[in-house]
């Protein structure tokens, strides 16, 4: 019998560490390592954008050729492409991933932050979302890593990509953490945390049913201009790569309008369902939003993403003030609303049947 060879723990430990590292660094979209500093642009920054991509729900959709897509992964790809094409912008792309402890026990980070500056990926880091305080973890990372240029010297915008955010906080929005409530007030406070010293120049809600009086009223303290959909929005969303096409614009109203115009063109070219986008100049539209937020029928749906909305004119059976609201609207090609009148830009919970 040959003598037993001594056990070498080092290879096993290396193997174990490698396996755990691979497990900890998973990503749905391949991202290159941070770029080298050589040749970096030195042009002064003009924009600071935060793109928040919610990825903790069902985001599967198919293009007409049958190809499956994950809306969150598509948006990440588009946001990366835009960030790389903007030499005078600082872009933070946040992916809110499902909570997935290792073996169901060991906590792991459930968020990934990609930090681009002047077209280069300068940082990629994971973090714990701490969902009870929306965007608090993301805001802390922004404060820590952003360029030493104050928000007040830049055009600032935040974009949220996800399912419809319910008007009243309720559980179930985050599929992996269904017990954590989430609603429009929480979203608005979270966006406010991303720019605590004053309102963002623009907010984009790439979700269904974002253009409602309660949502716009909640966002009013935190933004100058909003782009949102007052009805259903197909999962293919407002294309994030379009951000680079408005990189030269720093006027809040012009920025949201140009982005809406281009996103509308893309969406109407690829979906047959209704496409309705609206921009809200909050100096003019916020009083209407606040007034109607107190009067419209509250959303009592128990669905995690709230009730589906219809045009407020139809829900209220009366005109609604559209000052400060600009609408891009194309009804669905088929279905009960195919011949409906143009949308007012305000979405409301429909009256009881």
């Amino acid at each position: 019998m040959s003598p037993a060879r001594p056990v070498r723990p080092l290879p096993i430990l290396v193997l174990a560490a490698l396996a755990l590292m691979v497990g900890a660094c998973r990503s749905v979209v391949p991202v290159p390592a941070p770029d080298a500093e050589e040749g970096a642009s030195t042009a002064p920054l003009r924009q600071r954008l935060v793109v928040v991509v919610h990825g903790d729900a069902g985001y599967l959709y198919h293009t007409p050729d049958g190809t499956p897509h994950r809306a969150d992964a598509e948006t990440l790809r588009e946001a990366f492409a835009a960030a790389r094409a903007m030499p005078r912008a600082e872009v933070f792309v946040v992916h809110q991933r499902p909570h997935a402890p290792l073996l169901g026990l060991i906590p792991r980070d459930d968020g990934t932050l990609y930090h681009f500056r002047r077209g280069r990926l300068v940082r990629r880091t994971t973090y714990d979302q701490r969902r009870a305080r929306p965007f608090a973890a993301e805001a802390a990372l922004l404060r820590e890593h952003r360029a030493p240029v104050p928000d007040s010297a830049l055009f600032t915008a935040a974009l949220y990509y996800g399912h419809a955010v319910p008007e009243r906080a309720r559980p179930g929005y985050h599929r992996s953490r269904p017990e954590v409530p989430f609603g429009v007030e929480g979203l608005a406070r979270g966006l406010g945390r991303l720019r605590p010293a004053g309102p963002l120049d623009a907010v984009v809600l790439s979700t269904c049913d974002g253009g409602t009086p309660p949502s716009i009223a909640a966002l009013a303290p935190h933004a100058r201009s909003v782009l949102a959909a007052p009805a259903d929005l197909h999962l293919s969303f407002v294309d994030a790569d379009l951000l680079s096409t408005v990189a030269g614009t720093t006027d809040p109203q012009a920025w949201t309008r140009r982005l809406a115009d281009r996103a509308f063109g893309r969406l109407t070219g690829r979906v047959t369902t209704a496409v309705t986008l609206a921009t809200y100049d909050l100096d003019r539209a916020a009083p209407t939003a606040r007034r109607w937020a107190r009067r419209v029928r509250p959303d009592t749906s128990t669905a995690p993403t709230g009730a589906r909305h219809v045009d407020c004119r139809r829900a209220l059976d009366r005109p609604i003030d559209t000052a400060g609201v600009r609408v891009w609207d194309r009804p669905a090609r088929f279905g009960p609303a195919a011949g409906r009148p143009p949308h007012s830009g305000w979405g409301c919970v429909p009256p009881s049947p």
Partner: protein
Amino acid sequence: MRTASRLLGLLTLAVGLVAAVPPAQADVNPRETLKRHVRDVVQSVKAAPTAAKKRAILDEKLRGMIRALDRAERMTALPQDRAGIDVLRARLQEKLDELHGQDGYEAVPANQLDAFADYVQQDFEQADSITISLTTALLIVILIVLLA
């Protein structure tokens, strides 16, 4: 001792690989299976050689899904699931009515059936927020297969 160490290494590697599975694949669930079912229906409609066959496929598959939803509703006790099923069934019934020109709709013209199939799929995917539990979604998937 050596065998135990090897086993430990293999176990750790397996755990790491399991943990490394991308969410895109790990997240397969019955709700997504339903979306894939609709995708398959739409693709078979587009591949059909004549308008009559396209209309027949849509008719058969929409009716099959509505039947499965009827059965699932009778078998589930959760009020939230019943409400979700009602909404989903109403959306599918609308499509069936429009396909055949019933309930106030004009029938979808023969040359627009492919676009209508896209509409069925996109509208279904847009309805993602409909609240149906995973268990009931799985039941619907099974019933669709059984009743086909």
